[in-house]
């Protein structure tokens, strides 16, 4: 396979490997065999004897008062076991990740099209769907709030959350100011950039199975990014203590942020507990578009000032984020966007402000690259604009201003770890280019914009190249106590030492199960490592988000394994009389350089199991000053990536073919190089989608394209070959030196593609995605 496989190039780094499949290698995933056989149980595949099917009635209006609900006819329908409304919510009818503002089922008002109003349980999914149609809800339709800027500033608009204490419909306002505010610059460029609403479009729909338990609690099998966060919110809604809500992870068909908020969790439990039967819920694709949050659309004004020789003097930015009906992650989006809004550049004078608001548009929350994707489209467009104004090479301009270790960001945080942005840019520039199109040769139309649609044979095609460099924070920030818990054990099974790792950290496809095995192999020196299913019988792991799990849960697994190893050494010392100080475990044996092999691990273990549970907390971060945005350490770590995109554009039809999308990224330490390449390529493809095709069309608060027919994500035909160059500049504060990987490529790919389209066409293109209508100038 060598000729074809896109093997990553890596900077060399020492880590002596004593066993195969440890840290730094690329063993294959432990769940892979089941997955290729079709035997891996996703949350939508579950079933139980005597099971009912749940369904959700959703509001058809973006904003309305509910004046009455009649469930009688639905309840009388044969096969229907329950019809529930807000009156049946046993606990507190409120949930939310950061701000508890969202009803489990709507009470007197609905705030978005798609808001859950009632639930049905029936003996068949089709019966449940029909029963939904029999529920009569009287709505008094209200004028929706849909303009995010007005929502922030206009006191005349209705307040959508009057009890929130917010000013107007503001969820969070955050300014960051640093340096002088009255500076002038030789060259100034400015622009207003807008970004459409993107969908995570994970393939596995929201789904789960709840089984009522004899102790009055409930067992839930589901797909999520954070079991404990779900449990906390669900228990509150059910009025149960958290330990009565026991959650177990099923197979997760992708997540990308869209599974951070609750979807089916509280609903399916309510139905199960009400009927006393197992209940399953599965959304279809259309419902999925209404059933999870999306990426915040944004409007951003940016102004960059620089000296004539290309040194940034100041950045001014004003950013608005439409959070839709409920807060979800809006506060974090504002925090990330403002703290990362200057990009990976040193800027002495900064004046940035961000507003996140409530409207009656679809709720927005977490998606890969949270709050960092939006400003990257703006600041990277600005860097290119500035390069043009200065008549400078855009890569050189970026390198001149790139942050490095020791740089101070506009929050006042000093980067006390490697930040090799200049090097990333240099390496990106040097990556081999795809071959030029030969104008004399008859082209394969499949390689051209429009492809098999046969819209061109090479005429009106312009090629462009674009670069983007970005910055992303890793893990939770602004003072959150971010931690994970791992239980590790070691025992002899059939004459072999076998380790087990148990965490609640969600495997969502990214390969965390593999990473956990690798860490245990490296720390415990044994080949066989079993991964216990994720559930809530072990401590919290936090969410599989913010590129944090290899760092945080990886740190917890490492700590737990180290504790197991220490215990093993103590037992060895007790059994053998004494042991040398340079004791190590290699390949199931206790060894030391001075004494050679001392004993088999299985001998020391005997019949006993060594088990240790450890938490890993990253070093503390601190909140932003509410007025100045200053903070000594707002983010525990930053990650950086650079993309270079090459595109061909049909300038007549506005069709784009991305020809190459190559990435250079610093990962600190490549724990599993092949999996990292997969993350980078997959992440980049989502970023490319946002640049050229992905947008949830919302007008008057309504989603106009809730299907895969109308909301397009890249196919294999849309996606180019992607080279990946991995840099390993370890972060001394992180376990093994790792740096978060998952999000940066999603952030840098999109701006690079847009830059390439601008280079090909000479257009400004201030909106992402840039569709044919933007490129041909026919956008309304």
């Amino acid at each position: 396979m060598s000729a074809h496989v896109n093997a990553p190039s890596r900077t060399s780094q020492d880590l002596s490997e004593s066993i195969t499949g440890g840290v730094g290698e690329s063993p294959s995933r432990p769940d892979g065999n089941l997955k290729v056989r079709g035997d891996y149980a996703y949350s939508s595949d579950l079933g139980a004897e005597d099971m009912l099917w749940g369904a959700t009635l959703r509001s058809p209006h973006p904003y309305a008062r509910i004046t009455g609900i009649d469930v009688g006819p639905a309840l009388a329908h044969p096969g229907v076991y329950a019809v529930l409304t807000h009156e049946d919510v046993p606990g507190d009818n409120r949930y939310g990740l950061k701000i508890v503002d969202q009803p489990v089922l709507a009470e007197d008002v609905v705030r978005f099209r798609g808001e859950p109003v009632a639930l049905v349980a029936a003996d068949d999914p089709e019966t449940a769907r029909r029963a939904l149609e029999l529920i009569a809800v009287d709505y008094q339709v209200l004028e929706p709030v849909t303009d995010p800027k007005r929502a922030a500033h206009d006191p005349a608009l209705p307040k959508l959350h009057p009890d929130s204490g917010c000013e107007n419909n503001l969820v969070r306002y955050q300014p960051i100011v640093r340096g002088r505010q009255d500076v002038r610059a030789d060259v100034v460029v400015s622009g207003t950039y807008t970004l459409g609403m993107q969908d995570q479009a994970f393939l596995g729909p929201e789904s789960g199975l709840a089984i009522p338990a004899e102790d009055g609690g409930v067992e839930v099998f589901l797909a999520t990014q954070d079991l404990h966060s779900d449990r906390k919110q669900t228990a509150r809604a059910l009025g149960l203590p958290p330990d009565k809500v026991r959650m177990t992870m099923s197979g997760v068909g992708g997540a990308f942020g869209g599974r951070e908020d609750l979807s089916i969790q509280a609903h399916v439990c309510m139905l199960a507990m009400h009927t006393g039967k197992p209940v399953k819920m599965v959304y279809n694709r259309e419902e999925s578009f209404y059933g999870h949050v999306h990426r915040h659309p944004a409007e951003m004004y940016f102004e960059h000032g620089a000296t004539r020789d290309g040194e940034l003097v100041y950045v001014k930015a004003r950013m608005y984020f439409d959070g839709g009906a409920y807060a979800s992650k809006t506060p974090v989006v504002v925090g990330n966007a403002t703290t990362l809004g200057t990009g990976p550049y040193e800027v002495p004078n900064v004046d940035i402000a961000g507003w996140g608001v409530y409207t009656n548009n679809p709720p927005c929350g977490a998606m890969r690259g949270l709050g960092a994707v939006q400003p990257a489209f703006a600041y990277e467009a600005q860097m290119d604009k500035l390069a043009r104004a200065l008549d400078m090479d855009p890569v050189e301009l970026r390198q001149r201003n790139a942050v490095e270790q020791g740089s101070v960001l506009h929050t006042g945080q000093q980067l006390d770890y490697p930040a090799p942005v200049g090097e990333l840019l240099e390496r990106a520039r040097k990556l081999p280019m795809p071959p030029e199109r030969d104008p004399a040769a008859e082209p394969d139309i499949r390689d051209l914009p429009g492809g098999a649609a046969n819209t061109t044979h090479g005429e009106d095609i312009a090629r462009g190249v674009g670069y983007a460099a970005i910055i992303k924070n890793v893990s939770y920030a602004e003072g959150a106590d971010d931690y994970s818990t791992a239980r590790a054990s070691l025992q002899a099974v059939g004459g072999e030492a076998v380790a087990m790792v148990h965490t609640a950290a969600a495997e969502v496809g990214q390969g965390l199960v593999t990473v956990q095995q690798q860490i245990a192999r490296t720390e415990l020196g044994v080949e066989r490592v079993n991964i216990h299913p994720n559930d809530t019988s072990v401590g919290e792991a936090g969410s599989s988000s913010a590129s944090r799990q290899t760092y945080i849960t990886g740190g917890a697994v490492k700590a737990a394994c180290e504790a197991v190893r220490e215990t093993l050494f103590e037992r060895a010392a007790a059994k053998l009389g004494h042991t040398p100080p340079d004791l190590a475990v290699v390949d199931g044996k206790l060894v030391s350089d001075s004494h050679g092999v001392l004993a088999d691990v299985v001998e020391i273990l005997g019949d006993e199991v060594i088990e240790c549970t450890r938490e890993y907390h990253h070093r503390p971060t601190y909140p932003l000053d509410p007025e100045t945005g200053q903070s000594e350490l707002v983010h525990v770590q930053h990650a950086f990536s650079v993309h270079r995109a090459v595109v061909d554009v049909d300038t007549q039809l506005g069709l784009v073919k991305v020809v190459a999308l190559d990435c250079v990224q610093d990962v600190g330490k490549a724990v599993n190089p092949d999996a990292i390449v997969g993350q980078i390529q997959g992440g980049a493809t989502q970023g490319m989608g946002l640049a050229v095709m992905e947008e949830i069309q919302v007008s008057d608060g309504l989603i106009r394209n809730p299907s895969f027919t109308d909301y397009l994500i890249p196919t294999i035909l849309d996606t180019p070959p992607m080279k990946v160059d991995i840099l390993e500049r370890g972060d001394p504060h992180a376990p093994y030196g790792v740096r978060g990987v998952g999000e940066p490529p999603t952030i840098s790919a999109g701006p690079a593609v847009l830059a390439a389209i601008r280079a090909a066409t000479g257009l400004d293109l201030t909106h992402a995605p840039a569709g044919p209508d933007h490129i041909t100038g026919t956008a309304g």
Partner: protein
Amino acid sequence: MRLNLTVNGKLYETDEVWEGESLLHTLRERLGLPGSKNACEQGECGSCTVYLDDVPVCSCMVAAGQAEGCSVRTVEGLADGERLDTVQQSFLDAGAVQCGFCTPGLLVQAHDLIERNPEPTDAEIRESLAGNLCRCTGYEKIMDAVRLAAQRKAVS
């Protein structure tokens, strides 16, 4: 209604099939074969791809009744007992599986491609897999997997 069909070489006779249901629903909910996935039920994602009398189809777009008397092969029928099919093994080895939700459909589609065209070019691979969405991988490792499977089948 009653439905007779063969799936992965085994004869099934099932009652109570609703006239409006898809072959995908029958496979997943009545025959206990949830390997084929439902990600859109609209013919857009290919996660539900199965062989219907040796032709790959989106089983969500086939009415169950249309499969009467037919022979269906799903992802669960690709391996020979313990031994994975070359295409399955190649997806594993090339790292083409992340969340794996797209994998069952892609495996059937790629299996069919290599049967028909043992030495596909990159352009042919892309064209043949254009109806199978994957949201995780960016398709590069899927390309690697199909090339690898073709190579392996050629030498075996």
